[in-house]
């Protein structure tokens, strides 16, 4: 049983939770994730460790409510418990001195890239950050990102904040200005990570992406998280989740993410029906 210490809404459908999990907090490094199971009938879902307070044994997670499990998680309050929290899982990001690093976060990818950007900054890299969202109210962690970046650029699809456009537009602009970029880290929706990788490929800028395939055990045992990287089969939970973006077959990843669309809808509808019942049919 793992206790939720605090909850906070960062944007519509995006929440930040603090969990009491001393072992995990102790060990966690940037780029790693946990697996959460809320209750006995619950699914195991992976969520990135956005931050830790090591001295207090606290693990911080930011998640987007998209389906049954994340929505149910979103209804929990400080003082509630989740049944299982497993981690830290996956390999840590390779944090070292590269020179100039561009960190790109899309949507809930922003809190996920935050610990990476901070660690890169701490050891002396020049960190240029680009964060993007569909619209202004979905932009999260802007101040946190600013505090760990030498330069910060913001894009929104609808132009309601920052530059109108996509994160890749901003990346293209930086590249076209002839700035020497030594490394790119991108975390966000698959389609965004694919676009970033395609943008940097012609310039041979090493690009790391953090893949989010469906996972089950997240310990290398079931094989559901398999992704094709450089023509080889890799298990994202133990070989990743970070991979060389120029080697990843994003198309098969996107296809496999749709495996349970039908069942996810069934689950969600049932959940919404039941939660309406329990709060008096509002």
């Amino acid at each position, binding site marked *: 049983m793992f206790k939720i210490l605090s909850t906070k809404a960062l944007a519509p459908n995006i929440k930040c939770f603090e969990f009491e999990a001393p072992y995990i907090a102790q060990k966690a490094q940037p780029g790693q994730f946990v697996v959460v*199971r809320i209750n006995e009938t619950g699914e195991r879902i992976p969520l990135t460790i956005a931050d830790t307070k090591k001295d207090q044994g606290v693990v911080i997670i930011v998640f987007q409510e998209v389906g049954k*499990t994340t929505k149910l998680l979103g209804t929990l309050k400080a003082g509630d418990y989740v049944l299982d929290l497993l981690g830290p899982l996956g390999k840590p990001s390779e944090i070292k001195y590269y020179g100039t690093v561009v960190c790109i976060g899309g949507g809930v990818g922003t809190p996920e890239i935050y610990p990476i950007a901070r660690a890169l900054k701490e050891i002396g890299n020049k960190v240029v950050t680009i964060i993007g969202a569909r619209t202004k109210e979905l932009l999260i962690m802007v101040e946190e990102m600013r505090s760990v970046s030498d330069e910060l650029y913001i894009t929104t699809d609808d132009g309601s904040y920052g530059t109108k456009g996509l994160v890749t537009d901003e990346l293209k602009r930086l590249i076209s200005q002839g700035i020497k970029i030594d490394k790119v880290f991108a975390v966000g929706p698959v389609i965004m990570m694919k676009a970033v990788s395609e943008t940097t490929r012609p310039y041979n800028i090493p690009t790391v992406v953090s893949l989010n395939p469906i996972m089950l055990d997240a310990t290398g*045992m079931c094989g*559901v998280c398999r992704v094709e990287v450089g023509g080889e089969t890799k298990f994202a939970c133990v070989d990743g989740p970070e991979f060389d973006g120029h080697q990843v077959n994003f198309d098969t990843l996107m296809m496999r993410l749709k495996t349970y669309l039908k069942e996810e809808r069934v689950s969600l509808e049932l959940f919404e029906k039941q939660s309406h019942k329990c709060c008096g049919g509002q």
Partner: protein
Amino acid sequence: MAKVSEKKVPMREQDPKARIKNFQEVPFGYTEEEAVLEAKRCLQCKKPGCVKGCPVEIDIPAFIARIAERDFKNAIKIIKKKNVLPAICGRVCPQEDQCEKECVLAKKMEPVAIGRLERFAADWEAENNLVEIPPKQPSTGKRVAVVGSGPAGLVFAGDLAQLGHEVVIFEALHKPGGVLIYGIPEFRLPKAIVEREIEYVKQLGVKIITSFVVGQTKTVDELLQEFDAVFIGTGAGLPWFMNIPGEHLNGIYSANEYLVRTNLMKAYLFPEYDTPIVRGRRVAVIGGGNVAMDAARTALRLGAETSTIVYRRSRKEMPAREEEIVHAEEEGVRFEFLTLPVRYYGTEDGWVKEIECVRMELGEPDASGRRRPIVIPNSEFRIPVDTVVVAIGQSPNPLIPKTTPGLEIGKHGNIMADEKTGKTTKKGVFAGGDIVTGAATVILAMGAGRIAARACDEYLKTNIW
């Protein structure tokens, strides 16, 4: 000598037509009368072959004699001296290759149904609430960590706890039991029974911490700072794929995923349970072992119209237990023998729709002693499917080998450990079960746990490696 009946007392089973619609256990087990009748078939040999065939050397004639006398209480006591998980072994051990194969009766007729009798004794004890916890030895003050809660880890932990050591098991999944919980299906090994046996191990004083991945949450080296010794029983969890074109298509599962979703996550109860599984109409399972049989039979229970085993050799070479093959046949699983998948074709939106296969013939025996399958040229054909389960084997779980310096690793990724002691090349670290041998059996994993426990106790007392 009274005339012995040729055949085992039959065990009543769920009707195949009914059972493919539920996940309840298939065989019902012996009644007291049936057990006594079967026990009386035993000749009480002076030099019993059966004991030699048992990897943990249960005094088989002695426990059978007690059953024949209706002294069930002492029957189970005798078994438990050597085997802490009898209700499990009685159900899943390959008895036909072990004790029953060596039974003198087997030369002329059916051997004594040793497995069924073991199961009977264990169930009888539990049903009558007679499970006794042996008295605990005084505490030695030594602490031992066990990684993995499969049969190897459970036996190791139980034995050491009885000797007065403090034992903590760390398990990556949220439920202990290893393959017994996540792999072997409910209809063959009810999870309540596994839970019952784990409860027994806990009552011996073993503490179990779940959702703790050694190698991630803590490394073996970190455990060694807190514990006097560590046992690694992490099993063979890494699934193999064939690396043929199209294997990434939706609807293609590893057996581990298919079985973990069903057993551990109870996907057959979706949407009451949140974890989904694809309920294919036409399912193909690649492979011929116990795992393949389990997957094929699970598919039927999930509502498949056809469930087909695709195996590259013939029925004779199938490594699955005979009982499992027969059960699968009774339930209507189809078999494509001498058939090898070479690629998958998918629909436009990425779902598997056909397997292209080639036919095989058997050539000379290979290193395994089985005749080697050879491709017949121009024999391609396709099997229409919407779900495929790849059950061609798995190798040792790599997480600990990768994160533990000083452990010697074999060429298949297994941990090297001394057969007689379970000692690895790292001081204070023992290993046993599938992580050492590669995918094997429950009883062999238990045997390895027991051997290592003995050596570990010795080490804790003497500190000699």
